[in-house]
């Protein structure tokens, strides 16, 4: 029971789809010898009801912080598969899961910052095809990513962080373009700089949830993605309003 909840919570916190969380919990519980499992998962909480030998047990857990760490999703997926196949004992599974809760992110911070830099730069090149757009945009992306990730895996205030990241990132991008001496094509530069903030995982999971029939979660995640997108738009608008 505790293990099911824990595995579910890790999945949910790392940005897995609802159907995946429910499926993993169900599989784990059935493999552990429970007669009947019912789970109800939303982006903010997990309910599990187990039945064994006429007794039933219900628990729920609340999930507050949500971040994106697809490595953990993949890893839990892998562990549950091995457990169901019988390659992994219950104790081992528990140990691995608790190890995972304290595991640092897969990529060190400098590499993530570099990724923000590169993704922004190459995206602006994709849009405009001008080499000179790359550097300012990449700088903007770096700043956006750093400001966004400033307070680590935050509680709730995600929209605010996206907004601040957006303001700082686009301001930096515009400034860098200005130093380079060509503000006319500032559009591509700013768009590239916003790429590290795009709520890509929220959009894909929202679509997958809706497809799987988990309407509640799908709508919730869609709203999350929309909020982030609006935050970016307002941030860029603000900076543009000052510049133009």
């Amino acid at each position, binding site marked *: 029971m505790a293990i099911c909840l824990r595995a579910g919570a890790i999945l949910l916190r790392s940005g897995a789809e609802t159907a995946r969380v429910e499926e993993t919990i169900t599989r784990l519980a059935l493999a552990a010898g429970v007669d009947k499992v019912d789970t109800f998962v939303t982006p903010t909480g997990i309910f599990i009801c187990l039945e064994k030998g006429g007794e039933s047990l219900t628990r729920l857990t609340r999930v507050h912080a949500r971040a994106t760490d697809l490595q953990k999703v993949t890893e839990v997926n892998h562990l549950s598969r091995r457990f169901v196949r019988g390659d992994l004992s219950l104790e081992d599974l528990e140990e691995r899961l608790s190890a995972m809760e304290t595991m640092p992110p*897969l990529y060190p911070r400098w590499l*993530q910052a570099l990724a923000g830099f590169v993704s922004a730069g190459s995206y602006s090149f994709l849009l405009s095809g001008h080499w000179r757009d790359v550097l300012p945009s990449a700088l903007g992306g770096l700043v956006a990513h750093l400001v966004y990730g400033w307070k680590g895996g935050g509680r709730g205030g995600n929209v605010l962080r996206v907004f601040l990241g957006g303001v700082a990132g686009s301001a930096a991008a515009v400034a860098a373009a200005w130093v380079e001496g060509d503000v006319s094509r500032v559009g591509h530069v700013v768009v590239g700089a916003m790429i590290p903030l795009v709520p890509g995982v929220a959009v894909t999971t929202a679509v997958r949830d809706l*497809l799987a029939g988990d309407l509640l979660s799908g709508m919730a995640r869609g709203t999350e993605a929309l909020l982030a997108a609006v935050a970016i738009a307002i941030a860029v608008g603000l900076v543009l309003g000052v510049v133009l």
Partner: protein
Amino acid sequence: MVGVLASFLSTISFAVLSGVPVRALVPAGLTGALAWAVYFALTSLRLGPVASTFLAALAAAFAAEGLARRLKMPATLFQLSGIIPLVPGATAFAAMRDFVTGDYVRGLADGTMTGFLAGAIAAGLVFAGTAVRGMGRKDRDRPTP
């Protein structure tokens, strides 16, 4: 084509930001590059941006499902990567610029276009998802309790 390389790089680095496992990075980047290549080819054939985006997202989503099955990893990893190069950033930016400069009519037009493009991406994912679900997902169906 330099664009394909740029989309590959952009996708991979975004994947790193999302914590995609190392083993999946290169396939993820390829999915992104595929999406961009399809989009670029179709727009050069003078197909509208919405249709091109839709078909590119569709191609990427199919590739993602295939990769996920082959590598036994969640499809989200690759779908996410596939849609990154298609994000309607430029149009969204144009809309914001128009609104800020007071050109509300063009702003509305660009904003609507952004909505359509985002919808096209979602529709591409949905189509591919439904099709794949229909095509024998039996062994991976949710276990009945």
